[in-house]
């Protein structure tokens, strides 16, 4: 029995450990108030790199990268989150101009691309674009697609392209008209756990009563 339990626990640990590795998303987390953005996962090229999937790309590749933008600030504020592109670094323009980059808010993928241009450009993200209003724990997902043309020649092999994005938040106080409770990242149902807790407590009490009665009977 112990072996089975150990095996199940080990399997659970392996699965929970493996899940994040399988889905390597970019993460933009706002840790306000008066806090900073935290960017993950980073890479050997940049600590704030949001593109883990866009490494070692080859001609003809069409790759996607999900980036989750999260408001991790307290419940007292809601934030509007904006982003814009500063474009490619000067020494990356030649390489990145060969690639096509598209960015969309992943609301069921039915939104038009808010950016669709060569990867070195700022294009539709030259000015701040609002990604949404987020309460504490709220997230907005971005789908980023990179298309590498089959015509990319040998001169562009082993290139490194740097591309800057900026994110900005505006904090607002929670208002009475705002929906309550604020949306959080945990939507699990607590009712089964509450029932289990009550049942366990009841069982505990019953056992105590039986034990006490037994003791009394033995003493008499």
């Amino acid at each position, binding site marked *: 029995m112990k072996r089975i339990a150990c095996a199940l626990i080990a399997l659970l640990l392996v699965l929970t450990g493996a899940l994040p590795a399988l889905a390597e998303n970019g993460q933009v987390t706002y840790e306000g108030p008066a806090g900073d953005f935290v960017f993950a996962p980073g890479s050997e090229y940049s600590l704030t790199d949001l593109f883990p999937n866009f490494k070692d790309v*080859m001609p003809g590749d069409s790759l996607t990268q999900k980036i989750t933008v999260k408001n991790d600030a307290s419940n007292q504020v809601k934030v509007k989150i904006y982003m814009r592109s500063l474009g490619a670094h000067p020494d990356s323009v030649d390489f990145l101009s060969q690639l096509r980059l598209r960015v969309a808010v992943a609301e069921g993928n039915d939104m038009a691309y808010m950016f669709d241009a060569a990867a070195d450009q700022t294009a539709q993200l030259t000015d701040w674009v609002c990604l949404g209003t987020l309460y504490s724990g709220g997230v907005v997902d971005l789908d980023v697609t990179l298309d590498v043309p089959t015509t990319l020649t040998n001169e562009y092999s082993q290139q490194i392209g740097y591309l800057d994005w*900026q994110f900005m938040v505006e904090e607002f106080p929670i208002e009475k008209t705002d929906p309550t409770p604020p949306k959080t990242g945990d939507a699990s149902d607590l009712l089964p756990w509450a029932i289990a807790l009550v049942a366990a407590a009841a069982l505990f009490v019953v056992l105590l009563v039986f034990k006490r009665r037994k003791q009394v009977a033995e003493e008499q």
Partner: protein
Amino acid sequence: MGKIKRILLTIALLAIVVTFTTQGTLAYYTTTGQATNVVTSGNIRFIVHETTDQGDEFPSEGVTVFPGAVVSKQVSFENDCEHPFYLRAKIVYSANDENLAAENCFKLDIDTQHWLLKDGWYYYNGIVEAGQTTPYLFTKAEVVGDAVNNSYIGKTLNLSVVAQALQSENNPLTGEDVTTAAGWPQE
């Protein structure tokens, strides 16, 4: 309290209310952060292995040969990157005396089961996966006695292998064999 005073007081109260209301809808804090994102491009690499039948590296300084001699020289190619590719190789002959022809001086045991000759190139008939090494293109070179006469005494003959790799990802064959793959460099 006069009528004018009451009006002024009302206006002042309204102004205070409006001010508080406005403050409630204005952002009271902003911050920015910057991410430097990186895109890198890959490449394809291979290693040419030239060994003897004893498993040693073929000597880079070459070997002394005589007409009719058979030299052990095993040539294969190893995929040294993360990407699969097609591969072709060409054998180039030369001599250190421009008056001497080198093309007909060697006879090679080409592995025609795995290598397909077309337009002077031997195409590996398959995909070389990451980390994989091809079968030998040839394993020995015989010095042709009829071609290597006294005029070759003291001369140097070169037998060089030139190879090219072409990515196979996103590059399906358009015909029956690898010679039809798109992207082989023009000569």
